[in-house]
């Protein structure tokens, strides 16, 4: 069939179709789709253009456009004739207040998002991120960190033991040792991860929690810099105007050691939020860094504690129940 014949045929069919002007908009729509739709009769004719010899293509295009315009205006005038009444009835049936189609809602666990927030803050000031094992030997978890077997400091953390007196790490500080054993200074890392404590479960303690360890070793690292870094972190995390203090404390692997307290105006008291200090030269000796040359600071941030403060969660066990009514709030 030549193109001309095809055009004629389509025109005929369109006339037949609109002879009895349908009253229902849906029928009218069907006619529009059949002839003027994306895959309608007119479009099909356009699709054959490729097969037409190049010298005839311009003429064919012109004819097809005429057909398209003709059908379109005929169609439009029918729609107009149908008047506003039918449009209105269509609008009446549309109830925009009905709920949308269902799609399940996901959520990100508050520990994950808090962990990411902490990571992002430190990454933004030049810290890299490292990871390490949850099950480690006593040397990396304790001895190398100057937590000696026969010193009472060893009792500061209740420990789970597994075979060969290996331990479920009690802090992410074990990774400090792995890092320094494997890298030459200077280094600057944070280490997120899960840590374990053999403590009875209660609203304020769980048998595991998450930490972000920090370690910076360079030639001239000072306590003032440690204060600067952590002051920046706390203010980014909890707001520019929070009140904090650095309080002397004791950790065998840092000296001087400090804890940071955050003032809680609601409870009218200081809350301990993280521990830190200057890397003890004994730790440097254990990993083969020359303590005469290198100085450093380290810190450990409890993620659950951060999240509990941030979201005002009162019971640490809520994080591990995975109650959807809890999860959906984050």
């Amino acid at each position, binding site marked *: 069939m030549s193109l001309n014949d095809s055009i004629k045929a389509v025109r005929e069919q369109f006339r037949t179709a609109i002879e009895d002007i349908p009253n229902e908009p849906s029928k009218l729509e069907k006619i529009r789709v059949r002839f003027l739709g994306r895959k309608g009769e007119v479009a099909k004719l356009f699709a054959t253009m*490729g097969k037409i010899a190049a010298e005839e293509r311009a003429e064919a295009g012109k004819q097809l456009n005429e057909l398209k315009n003709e059908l379109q205006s005929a169609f439009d005038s029918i729609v107009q004739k149908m008047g506003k009444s039918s449009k209105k009835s269509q609008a009446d049936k549309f109830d925009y207040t*009905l*709920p949308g189609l*269902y799609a*399940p*809602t*996901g*959520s*990100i*666990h508050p520990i*994950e998002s808090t962990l990411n927030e902490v*990571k992002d803050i430190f990454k933004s000031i*030049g810290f*890299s*991120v490292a*990871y390490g094992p*949850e*099950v480690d*030997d006593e040397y990396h978890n304790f001895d190398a960190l100057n937590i000696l077997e*026969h*010193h*009472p400091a060893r009792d500061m953390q209740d420990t789970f033991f*597994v*075979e*060969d007196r*290996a331990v*479920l790490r009690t802090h992410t500080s074990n990774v400090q040792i792995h890092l320094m054993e494997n890298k030459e200074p*200077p*280094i600057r890392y944070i280490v997120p991860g*899960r840590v*374990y404590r*053999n403590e*009875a*479960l209660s609203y304020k303690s769980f*048998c*595991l929690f998450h930490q972000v360890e920090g370690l910076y070793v*360079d030639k*001239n690292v*000072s*306590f*003032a*810099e440690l*204060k*600067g870094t952590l002051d920046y972190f706390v203010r980014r995390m909890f707001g520019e105007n929070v009140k904090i*203090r*650095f*309080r*002397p404390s*004791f950790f065998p692997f840092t000296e*001087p050691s400090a804890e940071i307290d955050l003032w809680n105006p609601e409870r009218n008291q200081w809350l301990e939020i993280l521990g830190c200090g*200057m890397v003890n*030269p004994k730790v440097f000796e254990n990993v083969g860094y020359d303590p005469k040359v290198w*100085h450093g600071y380290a810190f450990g941030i409890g993620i659950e504690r951060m999240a509990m403060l941030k979201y005002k969660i009162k019971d640490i066990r809520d*994080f*591990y129940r*995975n*109650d*959807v*009514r809890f*999860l959906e709030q984050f």
Partner: protein
Amino acid sequence: MRLSINWLNQYVDIRETPQELADMLTMLGFEAEIATDLSNLNNVVTAKVEAVEKHPNADKLAVCKVNDGTETFNVVCGAPNVKADQKIVYAKVGAELPGGKITKAKIRGEVSFGMICAEDELGISDEHEGIMVLPDDTKLGLPISDVLNEKYAALELDIAPNRPDALSHIGIAREVSLKTGRKLKLPSHDIEKPKNITDNVEVILDDDKGCPRYIAGVVDNIKVGPSPQWMKELLESAGQRSINNVVDISNFVLLETGHPTHIFDHSQIPHDKILVRKAAKGEEFVTLDEDKHKLDDYHLLITDGEKPVALAGIMGGLGSAVKEDTTKVLIESAYFDPVTVRKGSKSLGMLTESSRRFERGADPEAATTAFYRIVSLLKEYANGELVSEVVDAYPNKILQPKITLRKSEIDLVAGCDISNKIIEEVMTGLGIKWTLGKDNSWECTPPSYRPDLENEIDLIEEVIRIYGYDNVPVQSRYGSLFNYTNPDPRARITDIVNTFAGLGFRQCYNNSLQAESAARLSGIKPVKTVNPLSENLSDLRTSLISGLLNNIDFNIKNGTNDLQLFELGQVHAQESKGFKGITETAQIAGVLYGNSQIPNIHNEKGAKHSFYSLKGSLDNFFLRLLGLTANCKKTEHAEFEQSFAITLNKTVVGICGFIKHSIVEDMNLDIEDKVYGFVLDTDKLLNILDQPVYYREIAKYPTIERDLNFVLDEAVNAGDIINKIIKLNNKRLKSVTPINIFRHPSLGDNKKSIVFNLVFQDNSKTLEDKDVNPIIEEIISIVKVKFNAKLRA
């Protein structure tokens, strides 16, 4: 440690309120909380018991007439020690005590207006054996805080394990003196010389490593009786119950100086011989708490030459304690090796006031001070008389380290300039002996009571601590450091989490510790803790699936039945024996349960989760995150009933399917429907994620589609046909998608027909029928032959 403020005040003037003192000590590194503060107790006053009558309806109760200076009240009291004419602490109706509010009450038919208080009811101590009796000259009707607060106000201190010296009132006084500049007033004691020598004490140190110093002396003519009121009050305010003058004196010196001593009843050491030796393996010993211990060869014993009388530095033996009729005692003031005491006390599970101090490092020089303090107190308050020469077995004097402290190092560590004047003041105040050294440095010798000061950094810490952490500037810029190699190897974890959350999954965090039975469900041998918290938390998880099943169960029980959950976490396996046999893997797992479409106004029936909703989620995940389409291949798995290995780029990255119901049953969970789930290897995904992604040019030419309808045996999987077609490796074939499945008897028994939609495209031209006809023919013939298929018209 319980710090009595009144006691502290004996050695340094305390002008602060309890709260101010607590804050000062906290900022010095001794976390302090108020333990006793009576200033908030209203309606609690001094009063007098005018009469005590037996309660008509209860044998153990009394009805007392209590006069508060203006009125007399009926008060029912159950204390055995209540007597007429006593001055007591009276909590009136309306008083709020730490234990609750006092109201008018009827007790066995008798109306009681308030309460006569014991110490525990005021929060002074745990004492509840009787009511608190005040001195006879106490005036009536005074608020109790006026009378008792000065005596009983106390702080609870958390002392770090490196500061044994701070486990005493003098130790804390020294810190306050240094911080405030107020004078430290140490108690004086005489070096007593015996007048009549009746005893000759012999001390043999068989183990002078475990016991470097032992001082002993005998005191006779002791009269055991009550302690003086002031000592009772100081001990009580520090939370220590008064027992008798001799025992109290030992406790008093302990809390005053921090040095533990032991007072033996002389009948235990009748021959005045002390032999300090290691226990024999298996040797038995009964301590004064009547516990029988089987000892090892590292336990250190005090013996009378043969039989043991005390576990050195830990506890005396049964019978060694001073009794009511004791008249003669031997005083021990020793220095025991910290490690020896710690090993001993730890192995026996005996933490005592004495062992706590020795294991942290007592002061070898304080042994003398404590000894003579005891002798002089026994003389003054128990009629005691020294009747032997004082033997001081101290073969090798413990020397203090010499430390060079450099000004430059202080400034470098602190990050600021701390003046020489401050540094010298701090050292002097801490009792450090110093002389000026070369190049702006000091040659220092720390005092014997500070075993924690061994190195320069220990002194630097002290300087900065006393200078004040708050006075060190906040330095908010510093030299940067570039790390070129993989600054965060797991940075893209965030994308994985975000993608699952975006697909409607909720992230869970489960306990890594679980019951062995749960950890074994995966068929993997779990890592076991040797000292578990409980049987339910004994093993490390080997898979994330069991935790997620628990979460489904928990949420069903709490009213949520439609769940899509996922978790990222570490799992462990004990692959072979020992620490080296433990492996740790990062895993991602997810579960689908209940409806994928919750019934709603647009879709009244809703839709249940199925293998295809699981597969859809995973397809979506892989496409979104990696731009890859995963392949599933049937496999076997301990946790999945129907399990399919998921392959990406020819690497198996995980498994999916539905979870064996037997696991749900083994875990005793109330989950009825099928649980669909998946487990992915995080590191394999991260590896793929780390591959570079390159832009593919968008095709300029139109596609052309063909549908092929095959009649197939039921047993043939659509995926097999698709894989076969793809393997023909036709570059123009862009996709093969099954778009319709039809089953009808007319097709024949066990037959189905599947329509495959094939899309072709060429990068250099518009395809025409003739371009794809050959490949279509090839596909038809191969499918016909390989799958026993027929083309359906």
